[in-house]
């Protein structure tokens, strides 16, 4: 802890040098940071200068209704990596999955970090917050809502990591039994960055933290509060299978000729066209591959309510309901109503025929 305190007062440059990182290594790190934040290489000197002087920010990580997948994703970042460097250089003061302390000691660490870094620390949240009943999810007897409000009160910024924290995610899926909401629905008076994904790409999580560390500010956000640099383009726009989509060449099953030739997965349910995320460029598993490259369509995991957006294997253009059954009912109803309308028409005609009075020439003569 005391060691940590000392580190906290050190700049990042000092701390790196102390760990024996050379100037060259440092610049390499800056270049990696720039590419991670999707900034041009011309920004490297500015980043180096900023990082040299940057202080280790305190990070408090809160986990609510979540599956720990986001933390798993983060810790799966390859090593030695930019991510590790960053995590050596932020002070992760509270993360109940990763920290050693537990119980009261853990909560004390959170309170100490909040107190000492008042107004400067970053709160990272994964998981959604249940509003239906505070008892649905609590830590050390403190409800998620209370812990969030309390912790965020003195924070500089909030990063909602994963689709649950960003949009409610799986707990929020219909019928949302716990009344789960996203962080952004509760926190209105602090900047909230949504790093969505189920889970989010590790380099995207660290890229946002790197941005804050480097510039002391949050990156530019899209309409859903996601950093533009990572979520500015859709999967479909960056997908290497896109030429097949344009040519109309689609795989129809997972092991047909088209699938083997790497054709577009739209017909197999790929939600790439509606999904904004960096998978196609950042890739997964140390840059090995990404879902579409491995032959499976995108599920749309970085978009709100993707769980409720219909079957994962239904093409994006297919409406969500059980259409074949409904069409059957609707046709039945149409035939029945049509028959009724037809019968009414016939009876109108029959009545008209019955009422019809025959007029003879004599009748006309009489009248005139």
């Amino acid at each position: 802890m005391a060691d940590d305190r000392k580190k906290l007062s050190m700049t990042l440059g000092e701390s790196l040098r102390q760990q024996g990182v050379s100037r060259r290594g440092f610049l390499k790190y800056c270049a990696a940071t720039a590419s991670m934040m999707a900034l041009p290489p011309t920004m490297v000197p500015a980043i180096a200068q900023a990082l040299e002087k940057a202080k280790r920010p305190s990070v408090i990580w809160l986990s609510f209704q979540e599956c720990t997948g986001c933390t798993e994703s983060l810790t799966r970042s390859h090593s030695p990596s930019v991510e590790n460097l960053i995590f050596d250089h932020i002070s992760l003061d509270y993360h109940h999955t990763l920290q050693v302390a537990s119980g009261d000691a853990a909560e004390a660490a959170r309170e100490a970090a909040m107190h000492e870094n008042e107004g400067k620390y970053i709160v990272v949240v994964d998981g959604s917050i249940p509003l239906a009943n505070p008892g649905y999810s609590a830590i050390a007897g403190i409800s998620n809502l209370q812990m969030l409000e309390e912790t965020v009160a003195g924070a500089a910024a909030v990063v909602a990591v994963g689709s649950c924290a960003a949009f409610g995610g799986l707990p929020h899926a219909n019928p949302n039994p716990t009344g789960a909401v996203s962080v952004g629905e509760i926190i209105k008076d602090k900047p909230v960055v949504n790093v969505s994904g189920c889970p989010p790409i590790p380099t995207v999580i660290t890229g946002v933290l790197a941005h804050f560390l480097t510039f002391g500010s949050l990156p530019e956000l899209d309409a859903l509060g996601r950093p533009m640099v990572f979520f500015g383009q859709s999967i479909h726009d960056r997908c290497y299978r896109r030429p097949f989509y344009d040519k109309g060449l689609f795989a129809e099953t997972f092991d047909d000729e088209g699938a083997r030739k790497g054709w577009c997965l739209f017909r197999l349910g790929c939600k790439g066209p509606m999904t904004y995320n960096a998978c196609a460029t950042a890739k997964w598993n140390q840059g090995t591959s990404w879902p579409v490259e491995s032959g499976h369509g995108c599920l749309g995991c970085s978009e709100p309510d993707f769980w409720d957006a219909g079957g994962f294997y239904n093409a994006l253009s297919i409406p969500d309901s059980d259409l074949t059954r409904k069409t059957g009912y609707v046709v039945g109803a149409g035939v029945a109503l049509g028959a009724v309308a037809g019968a009414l028409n016939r009876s109108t005609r029959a009545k008209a025929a019955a009422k019809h009075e025959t007029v003879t020439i004599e009748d006309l003569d009489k009248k005139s």
Partner: protein
Amino acid sequence: MSTSIDFLLWVRGPGFDIALFIFVVGVLIRLLEVVILGRKPDYSEPRGAELGAGLLTLVTRTAPEGGSFKRSPFTVVGGYIWHIGFLVSLFLFVPHIELIDSVLGIRWPGIASNLVDAISAVTIVTLVAMLFSRLTHPVKRFLSGPEDYLTWLVTFLPMLTGYLAYHRMIDPYPLVLGLHILSVELLMVLFPFTKLMHAFTFIIARWYNGAMAGRRGVQS
């Protein structure tokens, strides 16, 4: 939270159900009430077969007719272009085939998306030109009522929004895709109650003209 995804989910879910209901029920009512009403029995001795002649007029009345082509070539050519373009974009674009398959369980091969794209561009331009001619040609203008403009609009909107969605010209994509689906739902809802019904009734009308003539043994 109300996002563009919520909007997309609504138009793909409840919105589509409502539109499908009105469309299918409306079309069936309008067709059945005509068919069930029937015609007076014809007691005269038939002088020819109805079936062949009926089928023949289905084809001949769909093909362009020389006289009207000479009188108003633009209307005829433009009409063909956009009708064919509309049908190609509707039935040969792969995402649409997926939708039809999910509703009716039948499918057929599509064509390249960028070919559909080019055809839709031509269709959109033709539709605009047709509207322009309707507004400027004194006779067409005189003959046009509000329903003509309404049906033009609900036919044009799906083409336009489809084009915008394909080219991802409105951000975010779920919004423009949702608008496209909504515009189609509008078309489906108005379809049974407007002259758009001709897309179904033309078959009955053209067949009947030929069949009637065929029975009487005259040329149609």
